[in-house]
């Protein structure tokens, strides 16, 4: 994509787990088309997967009548992803830290952590009439993926 160009993609799905991959694939293709390498695209796709899974499970509580909306907006190398549900929201401050030793062996609670690991910024907005929007941003020019480990 040339400097200054922009691209916007939007998709709305019903709250079924089998729809998660549709949204993930869009994210990965958008990133690959923007020149992000395979690993980088994968990690952004995974952040999207986690966000959509949370919207379906915790936001819409698996109610298939409720929708999850995803928008991807790429402006130059700045990617903004918004995942919105129709749920009642939650208190982000009450989300436990999965790296805390007392939480290490918990079977859940890592989704938001992974999103924050793979994206530059993650924040929520709660709508007065109901519904939560998760906004994630990533500067694709800075390089993607995670670099916390190596064998």
């Amino acid at each position, binding site marked *: 994509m040339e400097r200054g160009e922009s691209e916007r993609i939007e998709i709305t799905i019903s709250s079924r*787990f089998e729809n998660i991959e549709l949204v993930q694939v869009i994210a990965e293709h958008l990133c690959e088309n923007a020149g992000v390498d395979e690993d980088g695209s*994968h990690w952004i796709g995974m952040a999207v997967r986690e966000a959509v899974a949370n919207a379906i*499970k915790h936001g819409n509580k698996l109610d298939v009548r409720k929708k999850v909306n995803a928008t991807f907006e790429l402006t130059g190398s700045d990617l903004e992803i918004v995942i919105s549900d129709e749920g009642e929201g939650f208190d982000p401050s009450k989300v436990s830290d999965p790296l805390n030793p007392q939480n290490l062996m*918990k*079977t*859940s609670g*890592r989704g938001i952590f992974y999103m924050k*690991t793979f994206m530059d910024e993650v924040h929520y907005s709660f709508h007065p009439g109901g519904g939560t929007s998760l906004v994630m941003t990533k500067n694709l020019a800075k390089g993607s993926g995670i670099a*916390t480990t190596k*064998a």
Partner: protein
Amino acid sequence: MKATTRSADGVEIITLQGKITIGAGDTQLREVITNAVNSGKTNILLDLGEVTTIDSSGIGELVGSYTTVTNRGGKLKLLHLPAKLNELLHVTQLITVFEVYDNEAEAVKSF
């Protein structure tokens, strides 16, 4: 997700193929481990070499499997960890929990 099992020197080797993700392989993994443990097979080697996708739910089920087996006096170890799964275990520090092997014979011998 597809799971196949075989035994070697008293170790139950469970090979997982495909996705371990929310609503797909996560609950299947729980069933496979529960069935093995309930039939007295508590030394389990999970071969993850053919796992194509895993998410936080799948990671959670790996943790739950570890706890289930350990609580029954057994051991659960991992074999052939794909690179991306390895990264996911590292960033959450879960790599410190699991014993991971690249060689099946070595892994079996370690029980």
